[in-house]
């Protein structure tokens, strides 16, 4: 289980700090796939990256992260080395394009586990078995990354990042560059890795809510550095409570909708500037229900068991 409490991560800029993650609190349960969705710039990638490597201009401000009760030294890049890849593994966005093109895939994996003082021979059997799970032949270990298609590379990256059976796997936009057929295959393989207990929990970051609906157990919706709603997938999709979640789901074209039958609506306006975010609710300028009470910041509260929303207008508090 991973508990994130009051986490604040800012980016240093010349004009002041951009508050990319501002007081974020939630837990990732055991054996769960938690989906995180939101528009670009909402802080979803910052959240994933900060749990692995806080690289300047990113800076830790406050808050804590606990992995199975143990406090993670996320503000100390040297101390974090003990946890990286072994306990927490990240598949960054575009990871599949970051494979060294001059090395064979087997060599890349040998180097990587060597960095973590694990002998290649120890994990070789496991590697072959995992490649079989994602339907890749072990011949690819003798090939170069550019010989694989996007879907195959992404499956390979999944295998590489989970070789040491981490507790938490963070997958950042892993299916965004893929075609629908590979997207389905790769997403379901993530689910299989969780079901087979290769990883304990998965955080699946994406802007594609339709994919989350397919594989996530719970969904957290982020907006401008804050979690605005979190709850079980089925309930978030069928009965969204926060006005932002509602608008976001309404803007998605589902297969089977034609413009002649039903007009979709976008969300007017932009997300706020994170260097000087507005007082109170950060969505209020785009929100159709906003009123004076929204000048105060709404806390993320439990409105139903397991269902958290940060909005003054949501009844049930």
């Amino acid at each position, binding site marked *: 289980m991973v508990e994130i409490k009051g986490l604040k991560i800012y980016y240093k800029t010349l004009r002041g700090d951009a508050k990319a993650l501002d007081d974020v609190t939630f837990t990732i349960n055991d054996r769960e796939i938690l989906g995180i969705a939101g528009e670009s710039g909402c802080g979803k990638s910052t959240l994933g990256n900060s749990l692995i490597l806080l690289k300047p201009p990113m800076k830790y401000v406050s808050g804590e992260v606990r992995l199975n009760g143990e406090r993670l030294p996320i503000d100390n890049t040297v101390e974090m080395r003990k946890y990286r890849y072994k306990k927490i593994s990240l598949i960054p966005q575009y990871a599949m394009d970051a494979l060294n093109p001059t090395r064979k895939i087997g060599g890349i994996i040998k180097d990587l586990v060597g960095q973590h003082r694990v002998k290649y021979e120890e994990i070789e059997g496991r590697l072959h078995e995992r490649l079989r799970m994602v339907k890749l032949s072990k011949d690819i270990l003798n090939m170069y990354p550019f010989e694989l298609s996007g879907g195959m590379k992404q499956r390979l990256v999944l295998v590489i990042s989970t070789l040491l059976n981490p507790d938490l796997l963070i997958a950042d936009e892993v299916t965004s560059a893929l075609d629908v057929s590979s997207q389905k295959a790769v997403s379901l393989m993530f689910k299989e890795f969780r079901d087979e207990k290769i990883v304990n929990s998965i955080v699946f970051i994406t802007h594609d*809510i339709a*994919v989350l609906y397919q594989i996530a157990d719970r969904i957290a919706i982020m907006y401008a550095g804050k979690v605005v709603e979190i709850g079980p997938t089925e309930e978030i999709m069928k009965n969204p409570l926060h006005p932002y979640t509602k608008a976001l789901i309404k803007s998605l074209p589902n297969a089977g*909708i034609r413009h002649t039958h039903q007009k979709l609506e*976008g969300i007017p306006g932009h997300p706020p500037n994170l260097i000087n975010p507005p007082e109170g609710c950060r969505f209020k300028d785009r929100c159709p229900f906003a009123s004076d009470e929204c000048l105060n910041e709404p806390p993320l509260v439990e409105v139903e068991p397991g269902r958290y929303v940060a909005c003054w207008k949501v009844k049930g508090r």
Partner: protein
Amino acid sequence: MIRVENLTKVFTSGGIFSKNTIVAVDGVDFEIKKSEILALVGESGSGKSTIGKMMLKLLKPSGGQILLNDKDIYKIKNNKEFYSKVQGIFQDPYSSFNPIFKVDRIFKLIKQSFKKEVSSSEWEGRVEEVLKKVGLNVGDVLNKYIHQLSGGQLQRLLIARALLMDVDVLIADEITSMLDASTRVDVLEALLSLKEIGASILFITHDLSQAYYISDKIVVLYKGSVVESGSIEKVFSNPMHPYTRMLLDSIPQLDRKWEEDRISVEDFDKSRAAWKEGLCKYIDRCPLADLNCVRPKLKLVEEDHYVACVKM
């Protein structure tokens, strides 16, 4: 309006000793009529962008022809005349504009190059009108630099630009894939307003839900060949080709979960073993295929619905 006949593109790679040829587009035919949106869908590498580029005269076809109002576009020598009728919009809006110009200057440049006869005051009125049509606020965009605008706003500016030029044909290549869901819809609506004034639009995408939302017709490509085409309502309600069926099955829906037992991934060994010249290109992934599946031709299966599969 614009018609593509037996369009083919062959790329060659490699040096003197090992020459590889890749058939990126393999005898493709389709037509987009006035006020029609045709969706060109397929996986990466299926040749959809190559077709778009050839229709914009950015890449010379290896065979076949592209007819704009029954005239071969490669016979139109005056490029200015051609581009006043055919325009393209691409995936990354930030790289489509000159970053040192403000938006109003970009619109002035169109007048200077293509619409010299219009008076300045009339032009300003027109600019305002088209911006409104694509859902943009004049005050919000006109006096801004490109980096001050969002991706969705820029894509709509490009559509506004096409509206101003009264283009006959617009090639829209993955124009929404870099945008957030909340702004994507506005771009699709802007495209529909361009269709209203009579433009023919080629909507290249890998997102089938969006294709269905705005298009009238669809062409499904696999490895450069058309596997299924026709009215989008017919293809979506009654997909016949195994590839189209698999694609439609894989769309992540908001009200239905994936059937987990039907995963289709490319199988390396199988594709190397199964592939022979003259066989169907989809043979390695097709659940119905056997080694008798020779290269199929597009056949009419019902009114306005064509399928290329020998098993049909």
